[in-house]
């Protein structure tokens, strides 16, 4: 008995079935399924062949290929393009090092990132030179980033576990450093009114999550507090924000924030959007964290109190770490929602990725192309949003299985 328990549990062997048997079981098990399968097969074939024909024959791709920069960085000054490139380079190095240091999910992400960049580089080789602006630097950049990630991976592959804490610090520092690089210092600052495209989308989403996280945790703790004044304040805030759409919060921030603050204080549009996204996201985050807090057995708190920890210590050392660990997948889900929601800043006049798409397909020079370029533009932009969201949701699912959490 004891020997049996110590052995690794073997998986039950899967009965292997032939192709025909598989088809019979999964597609043609009875007359109804057979009919359904045939109809669906026909529809899928029609849809896919139509899509393929469109992708190959449409002339509209020119709208996207001639506006790559607008999609990625908006109206950011072209001669300053090295700044976002530098930030992406930093991310590549950090990602590569993390992949080597942790293996597991970061490794998959790092390899995926590197491969994706290399593939994009190869794709840019296939484009006619006049459509890649500026040709040399774009290709160099794409291959360079791929190589940097790979180098980071290689550097941290042996004994990378020592790098873990410095890397955590690096990721935390990345946010302020990146903002500093993108803005520039001194006379030559680049106003946020010039920020746009995918870059702006990322900045809004990351700022939103970074800033709303502490606020959300505080609200969640406040909502579970014994002190009635604090509790009711948090309840009121959370329910108020969750009861109204994000557009109203964005609108309020863009219209009312300048009113609320003294005339000397100028808040630019991007900061206003960040404030709105943060305030909005914090309420939802608070509810997620509260779910984690509620899942912690009472005994944990009682044990901590019995050991002589005070309220603050109990919260910081016992309840919060367990609660946050349990809600990591939910928090990633929240981040995905935030990432998609940043597209609403179009309504208050910012030009993020979606705004750039709109700017492209409404350009007058596409009138000559039958049907315009809106299909192609939306196709590409939706693809970009999709890749990020899908990667994140898969990551969340993987974390969920790895930590065996998420079942509250």
């Amino acid at each position, binding site marked *: 008995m004891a020997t049996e328990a110590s052995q690794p549990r073997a998986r039950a062997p899967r009965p292997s079935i032939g192709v025909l048997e598989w088809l019979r079981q999964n597609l043609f098990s009875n007359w109804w399924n057979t009919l359904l399968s045939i109809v669906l097969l026909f529809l899928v074939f029609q849809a896919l062949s139509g899509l393929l024909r469109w992708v190959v024959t449409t002339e509209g791709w020119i709208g996207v290929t001639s506006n790559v920069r607008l999609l990625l960085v908006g109206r950011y000054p072209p001669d300053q393009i090295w700044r976002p490139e530098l930030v992406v380079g930093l991310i590549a190095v950090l990602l590569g090092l993390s992949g080597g240091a942790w293996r597991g999910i970061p490794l998959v992400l790092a390899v995926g990132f590197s491969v994706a960049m290399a593939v994009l580089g190869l794709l840019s080789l296939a484009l006619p030179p006049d459509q890649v602006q500026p040709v040399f630097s774009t290709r160099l950049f794409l291959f360079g980033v791929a190589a940097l990630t790979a180098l980071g991976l290689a550097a941290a592959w042996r004994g990378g576990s020592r790098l873990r804490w410095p890397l955590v610090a690096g990721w935390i520092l990345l946010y302020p450093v990146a903002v500093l690089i993108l803005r520039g210092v001194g006379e030559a600052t680049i106003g946020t009114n010039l920020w746009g495209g995918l870059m702006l989308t990322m900045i809004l989403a990351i700022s939103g999550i970074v800033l709303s996280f502490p606020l959300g945790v505080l609200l969640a703790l406040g909502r579970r507090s014994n002190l*009635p004044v*604090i509790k009711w304040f948090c309840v009121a805030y959370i329910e108020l924000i969750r009861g109204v*759409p994000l557009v109203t919060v964005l609108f309020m921030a863009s219209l009312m924030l300048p009113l609320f603050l003294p005339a000397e204080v100028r808040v630019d549009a991007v900061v206003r959007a960040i404030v709105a996204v943060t305030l909005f996201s914090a309420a939802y985050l608070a509810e997620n964290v509260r779910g984690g807090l509620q899942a912690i057995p009472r005994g944990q708190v009682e044990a901590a109190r019995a050991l002589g920890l005070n309220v603050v210590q109990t919260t910081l050392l016992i309840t919060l770490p367990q609660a946050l660990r349990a809600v990591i997948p939910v928090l990633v889900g929240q981040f995905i929602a935030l990432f998609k929601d940043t597209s609403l800043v*179009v309504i208050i006049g910012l030009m993020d990725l979606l705004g750039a*798409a709109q700017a492209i397909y409404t350009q007058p020079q596409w009138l000559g192309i039958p049907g315009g370029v809106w299909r192609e533009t939306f196709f590409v932009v939706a693809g970009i949003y999709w890749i990020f969201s899908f990667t994140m949701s898969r990551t969340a699912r993987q974390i969920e299985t790895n930590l065996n959490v998420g079942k509250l």
Partner: protein
Amino acid sequence: MAVTTPPGQPARIPFYRDTRIIAIIVQVVFALVVIGTLWFLYSTMMDGLRRANLLPSFAFLRQPASFPISESPIPYDPSRTYAYAFLVGVLNTLRVASIGIVLATILGIVLGIARLSNNWLLRNIATVYVEIVRNVPLLLQLFFWYAMSQAFPRVQEAISFGGLLFLHNRGVTIAWPRANDDFGAWAPWLWAGLIAGVGFYIARRIQFARRDRPGVALPWALLIAAAIALLGFVVTRVIAGQWPVTLEIPELQRFGFSGGITMTTNFAALLFGLVIYTATFIGEIVRSGIQAVNKGQREAARALGLTNAQTLRLVIFPQALRIIIPPMTSQYLNLTKNSSLAVAIGFPDLFAVAGTTLNQTGQAVPVILMVMASYLSISLLTSLLMNWYNKRMQLVER
């Protein structure tokens, strides 16, 4: 005589270490900080507004709105007041949200069941649909549907689906049932059917309660009501010579369609986008709800000799429903709130009308307060309704 502390009893806790007093102090300080901040924001705002001569007031509500609204469920023209225009916006929001909720629920349930189908192809098509639609921003999808609706042909060359549904660049025209003059002759039959159905249902329930065993009542009641209504339908046709209700087929006239109902492109794009998007979330809720029902329940039901359909209807669904309702409520709320994106594709919902009002009057504070209050009360009403339904469903449990 001096009062001395009895030996063995500890000295009084100083107030700064007494948790009860600390709690009060913390709360007072917190309240002061919150009130102080709010007061500061409020007074700066009022200063600014006073200088701009725009002190908040609701007086503008009685002035004529003087802007057109492209579609309205109630008669509207620009000479109506701002308050009336706002009401039009609220009604438009409710219209798109309520139709959207019904359609998204139907599509979502179909999707959720498709995701669990034993047909490999159907299951994977549903999965691909969910994974694509969920991971792309709703606003992008709305822009896409709107751009597509703009690319439809002119009314004269409308794309026809069996002559019942037409797509054209002014909207979507659908054949719609319309009551004829002889509807009055049919109405008593409808009432009779309703009364018979309800009566049958109540009688059966009393019977079940007396025998203390469950049975099927609702489907039979519906069948009886439908049969009587149908009989009346035919009888009216025979007596009056025409059907009491006919399907009105849209006909192409010189300047557009007459007959049927036509949705504007803005409304159709918004509704379509909201339904397509929300249905994926509802589908996932339905799927996980069904999967969450203990496997033993299904096995036990099958062992008792229930058929597959009976197992689903009597064992799985009632239990899954309890898991499904709370997250479903939040999806309904999300759909309602997301309908505010109408402003981006030119459908005059509550948010869009408020935006125009704000631009014209400059009364930011009252307008935003009104918008927030409207959404809050819609949300609150929906949650109350769903909580009531939830409670009713929970009672099924012993």
